């Protein structure tokens, strides 16, 4: 590390100069932080300040820069020296120190100590950082693979082609169009939202076929997918058994949905009389009628009355039913009732609903249906029986009039839902050795919820990933995406799920969704070409690497990577696929022998910060609390708390981490060993409604910290000294409170005996 030259820059703006002794900070940076020099500046983020740093980089050969000024979340544009082969560390003196402390004489000493520690920490961190270089294996491939030729897939293909990218659509059936092609008309997508409109699928198919950038492969499946963003390789196998291998930069999975099997609803008359049909079957009947009156399937009599039963086998906890709302069926029934009303206004059409859901402007479509004389009855159907002489009788409870009634109709239409066509359950449990039956049953139950009614028999993508052949699912078989922050991102970088495979949706929503997924796919392949992260650390050049001679092949990193970025080679060493990586560092946190690191983020960069903090002796009444805070939520929450004038303990030293999942337990045990009195870990919400950017990071951290009690007992320390919390970005009052509570706790249980 002979070529490391640290330049430390201490800002005096924003009141830092008034509140802190910056000359002392500069001295500490030089003496303790081993900086080549430390400079103070009145206004560091100004043009002059930045120019000063740039000049030092160019003329003085500074390659490590310490900015002791505001939070690393502020002024990122001014202090962006990363691209120049320079590593930058930020000491958070503004939000982290002066704004978090009262401006009083008594507080002055501890506030200054806080600032000094942050300068020490920044110097220590930067010394162990390496300026990140782009991934040398980066490849650019501007072709996109679209799996599925329905409305979502075709929209994605057309959008990608318009943006100048080559597309291959692989469709398993013999024709493009998917389920939408089977519709007579669709729910309107534009004002005045009054009548059913042409599906537009024919025109869409024509433009797909006419587009020179789009290749369509029908009757084909993906039999193998390997690689990573920028260099995916896929085997496309046609029905005849011919296979060809193609390379792609990104993949869009638009594998759509499977209609719910209505034969599971005998209580609603399906299968008992042909006059009870599903919405899809009605579309076929209407198409057959060709504009004339619709005929009853049982005897060909003209239909004079229709009852639509909403939520058939949906929004129900009964076994074999869908627990969720499929979202499209209310407006679909209104549309279908209009088929009848538009043909003959004297036909009675009743929609039997419990909650009518007509999102957005489709409320106007609902009104239009009412205007056309469609009767909306709030009630729950209990039974549908075949009627004498054709048709069926619907027994239901009227929820407004609170009575059991029945109505006879020539035709009963069941609004059944959609099941995502998302492939196999890659997390399907197998009974492990030593696992109790009870635990195994619990795991099986979780798998049932995860897959819902998805049969999970045939893989869609056949990924050659260590984690399994398809995208992970969260609930009911829908491909998991981060629905709070990044709805298009699946847990497989460069593979984007879109349309009803991601969540239930109608045509309008699916088309909008496909545009989003396409833009994401383009982003992913372009970033992969430049060797940098696409998401969520956009533009991050660093990527994890491991020291092979230290690796014990324990496979923890490959198992715990939430994104399947790490495979194993023949010798069972990890193989990092950089462009699949999201740079969360969960592998780094997992590694028991600590051989995994990023160039600018490693066990050392954080470990050295922890060590750099000055620990006063046991009798000083100045405890030290270490906070490892997620940089996405907890750290900004603390910044915002300080911006809002919320003060917290001066004994706390906060280290931002990429994700709580990257926290290696060695940091915690080292901290306690070197005399810290308490450690707080702040990550995001975990579990089913996770908010973690990296899906599993926070969960992993909680799991790992659950086991740290043993280490504490060995050290004969109180277990309360280590706390793990879920902190949201909005917890601006709670996060400082948690810190202050730790200070009070330490006051109660006493200082750590490990201070030397």
């Amino acid at each position, binding site marked *: 590390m002979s070529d490391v030259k640290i330049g430390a820059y201490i800002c005096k703006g924003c009141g830092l100069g008034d509140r802190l002794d910056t000359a002392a900070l500069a001295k500490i940076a030089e003496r303790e932080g081993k900086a080549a020099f430390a400079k103070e500046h009145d206004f560091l983020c100004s043009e002059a300040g930045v120019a000063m740093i740039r000049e030092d980089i160019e003329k003085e050969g500074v390659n490590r820069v310490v900015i002791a000024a505001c939070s690393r979340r502020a002024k990122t544009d001014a202090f962006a020296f990363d691209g120049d082969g320079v590593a930058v560390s930020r000491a958070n003196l503004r939000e982290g120190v002066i704004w978090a402390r009262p401006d009083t004489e008594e507080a002055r000493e501890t506030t200054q100590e806080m600032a000094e520690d942050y300068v020490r920490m920044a110097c220590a961190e930067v010394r162990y950082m390496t300026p990140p270089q782009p991934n040398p294996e980066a490849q650019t491939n501007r072709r996109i693979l679209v799996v599925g030729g329905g409305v979502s897939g075709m929209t994605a293909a057309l959008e990608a082609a318009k943006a100048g990218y080559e597309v291959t659509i692989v469709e398993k059936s013999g024709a493009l169009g998917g389920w939408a092609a089977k519709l007579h008309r669709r729910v309107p997508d534009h004002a005045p939202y009054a009548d059913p409109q042409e599906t537009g699928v024919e025109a869409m198919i024509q433009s797909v076929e006419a587009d020179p950038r789009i290749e369509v492969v029908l009757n084909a499946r993906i039999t193998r997918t390997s690689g990573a963003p920028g260099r995916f390789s896929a085997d496309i196998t046609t029905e005849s058994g011919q296979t060809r291998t193609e390379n792609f930069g990104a993949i869009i999975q638009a594998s759509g949905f499977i209609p719910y099997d209505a034969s599971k609803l005998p209580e609603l008359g399906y299968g008992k009389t042909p006059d009870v049909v599903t919405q899809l079957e009605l579309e076929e009947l209407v198409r057959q009628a060709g504009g004339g009156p619709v005929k009853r399937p049982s005897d060909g009599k003209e239909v004079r009355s229709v009852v639509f039963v909403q939520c058939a086998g949906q929004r129900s906890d009964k076994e074999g039913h869908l627990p969720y709302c499929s979202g499209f069926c209310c407006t679909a029934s209104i549309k279908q009732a209009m088929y009848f009303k538009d043909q003959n206004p004297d036909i*009675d059409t*009743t929609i039997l609903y419990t909650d*009518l859901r007509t999102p957005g402007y489709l409320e106007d479509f*609902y*009104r239009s249906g*009412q*205007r056309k*004389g469609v*009767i*909306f*009855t*709030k009630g729950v159907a209990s039974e549908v029986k075949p009627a004498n002489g054709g048709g069926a*009788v619907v027994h239901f409870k*009227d929820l*407004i*009039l609170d009575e059991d*009634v*029945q*109505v*006879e109709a020539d035709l009963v239409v069941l609004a059944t839902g959609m099941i995502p066509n998302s492939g196999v359950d890659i997390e399907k449990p197998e009974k492990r050795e030593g696992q109790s039956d009870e635990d195994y049953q619990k795991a099986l139950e979780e798998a049932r919820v995860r897959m819902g009614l998805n049969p999970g028999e045939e893989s869609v993508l056949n990924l050659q990933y260590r984690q399994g052949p398809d995208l992970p699912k969260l609930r009911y078989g829908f491909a998991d995406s981060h629905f709070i922050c990044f709805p298009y991102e699946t847990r497989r970088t460069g593979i984007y799920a879109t349309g009803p495979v991601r969540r239930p949706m109608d045509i309008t929503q699916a088309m909008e969704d496909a545009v989003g997924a396409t833009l994401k796919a383009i982003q992913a392949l372009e970033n992969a070409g430049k060797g940098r992260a696409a998401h969520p650390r956009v533009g991050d050049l660093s990527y994890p690497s491991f020291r092979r001679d230290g690796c014990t092949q324990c496979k923890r990193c490959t198992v715990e990577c939430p994104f399947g970025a790490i495979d194993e080679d023949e010798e069972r060493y990890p193989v990092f696929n950089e462009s699949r990586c999201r740079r969360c560092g969960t592998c780094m946190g997992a590694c028991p022998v600590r051989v995994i690191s990023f160039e600018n983020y490693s066990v050392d960069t954080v470990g050295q910060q922890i060590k750099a903090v000055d620990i006063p002796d046991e009798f000083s009444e100045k405890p030290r609390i270490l906070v490892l805070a997620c940089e996405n939520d907890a750290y900004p929450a603390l910044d915002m708390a300080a911006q809002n004038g919320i003060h917290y303990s001066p004994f706390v030293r906060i280290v931002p981490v990429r994700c709580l999942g990257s926290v290696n337990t060695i940091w915690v045990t080292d901290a306690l060993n070197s005399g810290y009195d308490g450690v707080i870990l702040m990550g995001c919400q975990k579990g089913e409604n996770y908010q973690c950017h990296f899906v599993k990071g926070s969960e992993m951290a909680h799991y790992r910290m659950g086991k740290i009690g043993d280490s504490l007992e060995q050290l004969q320390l109180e277990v309360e000294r280590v706390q793990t919390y879920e902190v949201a970005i909005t917890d601006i009052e709670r996060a400082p409170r948690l810190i202050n509570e730790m200070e009070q706790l330490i006051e109660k249980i006493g200082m750590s005996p490990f201070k030397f």
Partner: protein
Amino acid sequence: MSDLNAQMVEKYRNSFLKEVEANVEEGEWVKMCMQCGVCSGSCPLGPYWEHPPQEIFMMIRAGKREEVLKSESMWMCTSCYNCIVRCPRGLPITHIMHGLAHYAERLGLAPKQNPTRRFALMFWDNIAKHGRVNETVLSIKLYFMDGFSAGIKRALEMLPVGLGMLKAKRFNPWGLFFHKGCKGKRDIQKILAKAREIELAKAAKFGG
């Protein structure tokens, strides 16, 4: 039982809705109700209605013709217009309630003893005769609506108010014997007769 069954099935045909649309003032709005219940929740007399407006709309759609038309419910409306202001679908609920009451009266199905109905008829006779309300006669009639002794009792209760009004020249006891009415009494009666004719012609179209 099967007879009742058939009746119920028959009820769920939507012909009554059409009847209402054709004959009741603003009746074409009934189908636009989305059953949110804001009207029922907003009505200051809501708890006293047997069937609040939301339910009335549902009953019309369910074809409960007799039950709706014989109901006392729409006679409860005091025209405060709270429901109209709040209805997210913009239904003129107050007008529909009055329209329904009026229609029921026309068909002879309205509850005979309903006090609102009786007062309304009294008021109508009074104003139609002279083109202007004779307040003295109207209030005396209202007091004695339920018989002589009840009338005396009510009048005595209101005595202080009546004396006060007399002092302030807001009450004219001579009105009991002399009432001028408005200038064009005959013209007013002609107008009313014509209006009635038009209404009946409209009703005849749908056999109401």
